């Protein structure tokens, strides 16, 4: 009996969140709390700021205003489900949950509901196969292309051969961290290095034993596949055992200012892959300053502008807006539906002229999305931390990964998913 009373109170609360139509809705399943907030806050700020900029400067996209609905997930899948259910009825066009766990939850649900999911540089890698994953996109790069890019870079550093070398993978012991293992194993056979796996459990604040293991076994290189507080701890521990920083390479989720700053000068020379350009010297940032920050409309505390995850939030929002523009042009409708959004994403073309026009020259790779390929070319650049100047420098330009290896893995994994879930791959003419 008590239950019904509580339920009635909840009913009042939910009814109050009434939907408003005729705008482009972008739910932002953000996490500004918890062990991963250090990456979640700047990303959410960048995402929201870009959408605000589009509204303030251009009057929306094609004349329709954008609306960002933030929902706090704390990187927790149960809250992610709640956020998804709470926002999907508001006309959500696209989900970018910034969490591999939540992406795994949303892939079947959003596919059934007909809402596209864009997991940019995270999520399920085999979603790159558009024949099986009609509603899921992970362009421009994913974990497996990232793993391959890192191995290619190490190989170039070693003069083209990795025979007899040992590469350690220090990873978050979750779906996120385990994703690259298979690729690294296949690449190990190809290049002749041996792979050492070092898992770190959530949230990763305690890594003494892992780094002791690294100190004893002395791998030649360490790949860091961490997120949130785990990154800072890993870099600090690496510095403590005096592991050479330039032999430690992070995935793009382990390469933010907040990850290296706590270790101070000891983190000098640490390398990380990057999806986008670094810094705030792009023309777009002048517009953000003018229309968003100076107008007092910046999201969050407004102190994250130009950091790596902030730029990634900008990039994610920019790709979403460009997909909206593509969809509007294709269908001749300004107030698009999620189905049209999917078409827009599938026909998205990012070239240099477009990015320059947006004020982001050379910010990301050029790529085209197609019906078969939802993953893009998988280009990643390498950046290095300069602790003295407190900034990241690009030391290797965007380069293509070993697609022969990855395409086979993507095909195998997506076919297994299709078989498990009785999906007939669609026909891409």
């Amino acid at each position: 009996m008590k239950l019904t009373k509580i339920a009635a109170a909840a009913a009042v609360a939910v009814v109050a969140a009434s939907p408003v139509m005729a705008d482009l809705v972008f739910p932002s399943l953000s996490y500004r709390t918890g062990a991963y907030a250090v990456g979640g806050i700047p990303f959410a700020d960048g995402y929201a700021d870009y959408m605000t900029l589009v509204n303030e400067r251009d009057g929306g996209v094609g004349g329709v205003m954008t609306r960002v609905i933030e929902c706090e997930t704390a990187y927790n899948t149960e809250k992610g489900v709640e956020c998804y259910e709470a926002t999907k009825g508001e006309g959500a066009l696209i989900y970018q949950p910034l969490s591999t766990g939540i992406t795994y939850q949303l892939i079947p649900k959003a596919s059934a509901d007909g809402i596209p999911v864009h997991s940019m540089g995270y999520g399920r890698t085999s979603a790159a196969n558009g024949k099986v994953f009609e509603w899921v996109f992970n362009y421009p790069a994913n974990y497996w292309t990232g793993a391959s890019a890192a191995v290619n870079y190490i190989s170039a550093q070693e003069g083209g051969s990795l025979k007899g070398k040992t590469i350690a993978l220090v990873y978050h012991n979750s779906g996120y961290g385990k994703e690259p293992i298979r690729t690294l194993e296949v690449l190990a056979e190809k290049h002749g290095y041996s792979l050492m796996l070092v898992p770190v459990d959530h949230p990763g604040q305690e890594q003494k034993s892992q780094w002791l293991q690294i100190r004893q076994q002395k791998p030649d290189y360490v790949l860091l596949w961490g997120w949130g507080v785990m990154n800072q701890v890993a870099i600090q521990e690496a510095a403590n055992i005096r592991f050479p920083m330039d032999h430690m390479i992070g995935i793009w989720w382990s390469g933010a200012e907040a990850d290296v700053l706590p270790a101070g000068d000891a983190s000098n020379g640490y390398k990380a892959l990057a999806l986008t350009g670094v810094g705030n010297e792009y023309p777009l940032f002048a517009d953000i300053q003018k229309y968003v920050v100076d107008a007092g409309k910046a999201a969050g505390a407004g102190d994250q502008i130009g950091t790596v995850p902030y730029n990634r939030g900008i990039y994610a929002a920019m790709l979403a807006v460009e997909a909206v523009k593509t969809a509007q042009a294709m269908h001749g409708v300004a107030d698009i539906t999620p189905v049209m959004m999917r078409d827009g994403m599938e026909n998205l073309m990012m070239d240099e002229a477009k990015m320059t026009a947006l004020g982001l020259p050379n910010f990301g790779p050029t790529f085209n999305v197609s019906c078969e390929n939802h993953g893009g070319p998988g280009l990643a650049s390498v950046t290095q931390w300069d602790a003295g100047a407190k900034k990241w420098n690009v030391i290797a330009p965007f380069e293509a990964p070993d697609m022969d290896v990855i395409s086979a893995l993507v095909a195998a994994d997506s076919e297994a998913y299709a078989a498990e879930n009785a999906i007939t791959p669609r026909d891409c003419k």
Partner: protein
Amino acid sequence: MLYREAGDFKTSYAEDSQTFPIVIDRVGYYVVLAIAFGVIPFLINDYWANAVFVPLLIYAIATLGLNILTGYCGQVSLGTGGFMAVGAYACYKLMTAFPELNIFFCVLLAGGVTAGVGVLFGLPSLRIKGFYLAVATLAAQFFLVWMFNKVPWFYNYSASGQINAPERTLAGIVITGPHTEAWAKYLFCLVFVVLLAWLARNLTRGNFGRQWMAIRDMDIAAEIIGVNPLKAKLSAFAVSSFFIGIAGALFFAVYLGAAEVGEAFGIQKSFLILFMVIIGGLGSIFGSFAGAAFLVLMPVILKNVLVGMLGWQTDIAAHLEFVIVGALIVTFLILEPHGLAQLWRIIKEKLRLWPFPH
């Protein structure tokens, strides 16, 4: 005036020992059941199912399970998350290994598997008690999570170690997978809740329940009056794990659809369910529901009020949620250390006397 047993004469032993001896309680119980089965399924939508009712029902099962072990038998367990993981992974392996097996039996069998594992980890309870047992079950929690992470057989060698629930039907109605209707999800869980709550109620007031309570109150005295501690403790572990395993299977297959052991079944889940038991009331069926409702619904209500109605920033609201829920827990426990169930009992006592307090 209304709420009393005066004039409600019992003429048989069965009537005298029924669960709800007072008419208004009995009527209320049937009304709740009628609403739960006859009204809510027609009104429910995806949000209400996935954010409110399904997690509430599943946590209620898990809380009932832990309450049998901790509340009735007095064995503190911190392994609940691990046992839920056993249920989830057993259900996953059964679903994928026997695609034609009915999902209802998959869930039941998953509960059975968990009962076996629970008995295994319950063996130390014969030698150690109290906090020491809590530590032993904590080992179960960490060992089980580690094992499901480490052995790829459990997650069918998938690249990420995630398990995904394939689509399964019951009498032609989709129960798991993304195409499940909200009402189907809800009713499937509700059937389990009603069956298990009925089972728990009747077990706890029967021979087994009395043995468990005797062990809880003083194990040496219980042994002297002829209660076999081996049988009592292990049966409590088995029944409790059976409930928790079913909760884990439903949590994975019906509610989340995809799960990752460290995130979904970590130590925080064990604590959450233990808090539900403590806040609801140790050794009470109603308390299990009340505790689960309190901890599942409070964050959702607060979030909807603070963000949805007042338009606060999500991070401030999220932090305040912790503060408010925490403060409410402390307040409740100061006002009534025996939980919401005791509060409910006191209200009922007062109602019997009302409007004449003496």
